[in-house]
Structures are given as structure tokens and as C-alpha cells.
């Protein structure tokens, strides 16, 4: 068998697959951010907290109401999205005419409040969320043992990403959205309710974060800080992909997951910074990101 830089191919395949799984989280989260930024011009720093809400939502359904994982996958994202809609209606919409920075400060502050609130009640160690029977166990792929829970993450996020891309790029609703992004006044003049569109888009972006949170619940510890570290990476992903680019954020999410996975084999100490190094390099060469259009 061939070896690459002293790493046997089984190990390499395994790590690539794991990278893809982590990339799935990046893709779903950065997709939500990209959708929100594309239409609202808001840098949604609450995204990490909303991801955490998704995981806690699943936990609460299970522990308070006895509702299992599969229902949570369906119920929690819309609920988290609804909380997003309330935020948008009550707070965020007041900032549209102001500079990006105001939106960033508001959403960042909201994130701190939400996370602090949960930390007060649940502590930081996290809560156990047992995976449903269908997701326990796994398959031996020859080169690695793939837990069912991880396989499901890839599958679910691929479906969600593709569906979102399809809606935005290929349907009439998506066409309205894209048009409203380009020129809201003109689209409004055609009789389309742009503010409603904006609210629903924010809700949808937030629901994506909640969805990623539900996916994460059986894998990572459900704890209030779970989104805080992840969100910084996801922002880097969005910047690399090009702010507001739908396809860009999906492809970059999976791609950077792969690169990070490889770094964990060849130079694990660097795996926390590799994405930021790439971000710096991309910004040097293409300031608008890989898939972004320069303004």
C-alpha cells in the first residue's frame, strides 16, 4: 500500500471523512450566516448562541417533555427560528439603516446575554444527551469505524445545504430573495412585502443554526459555551467563502473541514489556527473571498 508522508492511507481516509463531518457543521452554520448577511447585511454574532439554543432545545424536549431526538430534529429548528424572528422584529430591524458595526455589537451583546443566562442555570460542564437507538453503534468501513451519529450528520447537513441552495437559486421565492438583496426598494415597488421577507429570512438563518445545534446534541456535550468557540471559526469560513455567497459558504465549510482534518494528522497543534491562516491568505489574494463578488 502507498503511504503519504508516513501516514497510512486508512488513517488518511478516516481523517478526511472526519474532516468532512466537521465541515458539515461549518457548512450549515456558515450557510445560515451567509443567508442572513446576504439579505439583511447583519453580521449575526448571535449565531453561536442560537446553535447552542438548538442543542438545549433538544435536551429540554427530551428531559421536560419526553420528546425524542427525531421529533426534536423537526420541532426545534422552527422554534429557534421563531425566537430569531422575535429578535429581528423587536431589536435588529431598528439597525438596518445604520453601519454594520451596530448590528454586530447588538448581536454580540445578545449572544453574551443568552449564553450567560444558560450558564447561570445549567453550569458549564454540560448535560448528557443520549443518542437515539438508531444513531448508536456504527459501521466498520475498513479504514475506520464510522459511528452512525456522525454518518447522519453528514447526510442531514448535505440535504439541508442542498435544499437551501436550491430554494435560493432555483425557485421563485429565491428569486425574490436575491432581488431584494440587490435592490429592496425596486422589489418593494413590485408589491412584494420586503420587510416580511427579511424577517422570514432571518428566522430561516437562525433555524439553520438551531438545526446544527440539534445535530450536535448527541455528539458534543450540551453546554452553554458550545457555540462560542465554534462561531469564530464559522465566521472565518464565511469570510473565506465570500460574505453572503450561498454556494461559497457551503463549499468552503466542507473544504475547510477537510483541511482542518488533515492538519490534525500532520500538525495537530496547528489545527486551531489553520483556518485563520487560510483566511489571512485568501484575504490577501482575494479580499472579497473565494466566491464573493467585489463590491
Amino acid at each position: 500500500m502507498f503511504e503519504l508522508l508516513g501516514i497510512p492511507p486508512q488513517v488518511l481516509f478516516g481523517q478526511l471523512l472526519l474532516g468532512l463531518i466537521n465541515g458539515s457543521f461549518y457548512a450549515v452554520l456558515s450557510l445560515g450566516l451567509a443567508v442572513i448577511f446576504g439579505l439583511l447585511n447583519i453580521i449575526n454574532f448571535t449565531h453561536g448562541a442560537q446553535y447552542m439554543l438548538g442543542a438545549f432545545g433538544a435536551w429540554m424536549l427530551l428531559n421536560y417533555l419526553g420528546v425524542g431526538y427525531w421529533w426534536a430534529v423537526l420541532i426545534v429548528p422552527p422554534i429557534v427560528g421563531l425566537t430569531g424572528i422575535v429578535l429581528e422584529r423587536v431589536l435588529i430591524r431598528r439597525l438596518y439603516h445604520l453601519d454594520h458595526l451596530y448590528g454586530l455589537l447588538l448581536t454580540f451583546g445578545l449572544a453574551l446575554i443568552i449564553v450567560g443566562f444558560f450558564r447561570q442555570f445549567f453550569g458549564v460542564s454540560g448535560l448528557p444527551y443520549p443518542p437515539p437507538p438508531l444513531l448508536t453503534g456504527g459501521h466498520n468501513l475498513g479504514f475506520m469505524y464510522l459511528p452512525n451519529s456522525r454518518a447522519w450528520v453528514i447526510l442531514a447537513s448535505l440535504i439541508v445545504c442542498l435544499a437551501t441552495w436550491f430554494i435560493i437559486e432555483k425557485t421563485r421565492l429565491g428569486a425574490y430573495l436575491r432581488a431584494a438583496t440587490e435592490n429592496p426598494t425596486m422589489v418593494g415597488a413590485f408589491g412584494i412585502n420586503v420587510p416580511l421577507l427579511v424577517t422570514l429570512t432571518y428566522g430561516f438563518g437562525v433555524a439553520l443554526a438551531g438545526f446544527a445545534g440539534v445535530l450536535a446534541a448527541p455528539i458534543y456535550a450540551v453546554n452553554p459555551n458550545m457555540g462560542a468557540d465554534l462561531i469564530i471559526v464559522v465566521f472565518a469560513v464565511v469570510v473565506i467563502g465570500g460574505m453572503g455567497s450561498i454556494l461559497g459558504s457551503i463549499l468552503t465549510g466542507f473544504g475547510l473541514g477537510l483541511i482542518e482534518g488533515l492538519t490534525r494528522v500532520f500538525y495537530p497543534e496547528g489545527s486551531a489556527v489553520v483556518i485563520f491562516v487560510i483566511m489571512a491568505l485568501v484575504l490577501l489574494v482575494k479580499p472579497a473571498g473565494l466566491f464573493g463578488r467585489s463590491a
Partner: protein
Amino acid sequence: MKKMGFILASTASLLMAGAAYATDVKIGVLNDRSGIYADIAGEGSVIAAQMAAEDFKAADKGINVSVVSADHQNKPDVGSNIARQWYDTENVDVIADVPTSSVALAVNEITKEKNKIFLASGPASSDLTGKACSPNTVHWTYDTWALANGTGSAMVAQGGDSWFFVTADYAFGHALERDTSAVVEASGGKVLGAVRHPFPGQDFSSFLLQAQGSGAKVVGLANAGGDTINAVKQASEFGITQGGQSLAALLMFINDVHALSLEVAQGLVLTGAFYWDMNDQTREFSARFQERNAGQKPSMIEAGVYASVLHYLKAVEAVGDKDAAKVMAKMKEMPTDDPLFGKGTIRADGRKLHDMYLFRVKKPDQSKGAWDYFETVATIPADKAFRPLADGNCPLVK
């Protein structure tokens, strides 16, 4: 006028009390209050310090104790700034706790420089009583050598003679890996490799897969708190133990087990200095603590904060002064005795000596409910539990 009268009256009553002296002691509890170590130390350590002052009845003995706290965010620069500010401008006499070895090593230096006292309960690195030892530091609860000696030897004795480490990439993880490797090799085992993960981490799958691929019999987790929780959870997901490898959580706290649930954590062997359900005294303290700490039982770190502050206050009372050199000398001269750790001593290099315990996490059906998690497998006597004085290379004892 009224105020003046009050001051005069209180001064008079102090004078009349004769032998009574008033010493103001300010204790700064410095730890992680928001990150991955906030549940094993955090506010609980502050409560523990306050309880020590109350139980000691410090006020009745003329010692006026105030406790302040701050969040070092697990960052040495943040921790150093707070420590300097406390010592320089806020008259803090003692810094207690300080989990996260990288921060603790920095506070250790600053405390020496400012000639104050550092009661280290949270940090693990055995360097605090080794090459970085200080005349101003007491390392109370545990250290990486004791953990390695406890869990490492136990695993090798069970046949786990080849190891692969998943290590948190900072001072603590490195020290724990180093000390455990030494134990493994000294017992005839082999270390096949190690991978250093960023601190704090969330996804450990890559590192666990590398550990799986190494074929080592034991996967040693040289990390703590939220990192250990995630690593153990994911190790179970990736079938590490089902594949015949054993998992050694080299530093695990009761709060971690609580977060993992017994289903996931059962069977893990761990080394600790304290468990709430050891005797009547520990149970009594833990029940009072739990009431004040949002229903959580004390971790060994919080227990260590209580015991170390108690011993410090006893020394202040005995000396009748809070001069750092005199109090430190007294603390080392006086044997320690408290309800949580029993009788013990503090060695010249600052190492507090007490028994350590090898615990095993109970199976779900053995547990009577929340917090009933550990069974004691073995007691490691104080003289065997910690690194021999001569092996630490502490400059103070040469």
C-alpha cells in the same frame, strides 16, 4: 458626631478586650468563572473560601476576612494582570485556587516577587513544587505526579502496558503526559505516541482515531474539565473501549461524571484527593456546600480551597500577624487538620501531603442517584501519593 462616638466605642471595646488584635485578611479567589473549568472551581471555590472563614469563626478571633474573586479566563496574561492588580492596589494577601496550570505558574512567580501567599488548589502541574517551586506557594489538593502515580500505575497493573496520549496542548497537559509517561515506563510499559490537541477543544474525533490507530492498550486523556467530558463522550461514540482499548481519564472530577452520565462514564478509574461521600465530616460539609452552590457537590478543588484557607487562617491566628514569611513558616510547621482531608503536613517545597484515592465510576445500577458516582478502589497513603522530595529538583530544598 454619632459616627465618631461609634468609632470611639469600638476602639474602647477593642482595648478592653486586651489580647484581641484586629487583622484584616483579604483572600482573592482567582479561577475560571465562565469557561470549561468553571464548574469544577468557579463560584464554588469562592463559596468554599467563605465557608472556611465562617467555620473558623474568624471574626470572633479578631481576623477580619474578606473574599474577592475574579475570572482569569484560563489565560495567563489575564490572570497575571489580575494578580498584580490585587497585590499592588487592592491589598490582597492571599490568592487561592487558580486552576489552569499555565495561569497558576504565572501567579506563582508574581506571588513570590510580591512576597504574598499562593494557596494553589486548582492547578495540576507538579512543576509548582518542582523546578518552579516557591517559598510563597502551597500546592494543596493534587498534582500531575500524584495523578500519574495513581491512575497510571493502576492501569499498568491491570495489563495496560502500552499507551497513547491525547494531551491538552499547554503546561498542564504536557506535565501530566510527562509524569504519566515516566510512571508507565518505570513500570515496564511503553508509550507509543501522543497527540496534542488545541485547548480548549470541542471535537476530539481525529485525535481519538489516531489513538485507535496506534493500537495502544490504553488511551490516556491528559486533559481536564470540558475537554475530558467531550473526549470521553466521543471515545464511547467511536467504540474505543468496545474495540478492546481502555480509556484512562487521568484527571477527572465528579462534575465531569455528572455531565457525562454514568452510562457513558461507568468503569473509568480515576485518582482523586477527595470525595464527598467518604465519612460523616465530608458528608456534612458537602451537604452545606451543595445548598449554597446550586445543588452541586464539591469537587476536590473546591474542597482544597476550603481546607487550604482554613489552614492559612489557623496560621494567621497562631502568628498573630499576616506577614507572609511568618505565616508560611507557621503553615509548614503546624500539621494540617481539617474535616475534608484529615491530618496532613506541608513539605518544604510547598507540597501538601495527604492520602490520595483510586476511585472507580459506579455502574448505573450501583448508584443510588445523582452524585453517588464513585467507589473507592484503593487508598494511596500520603507518603506514597506524592513525588519524593528529592526527585522534584526544587531549588528550595537543595
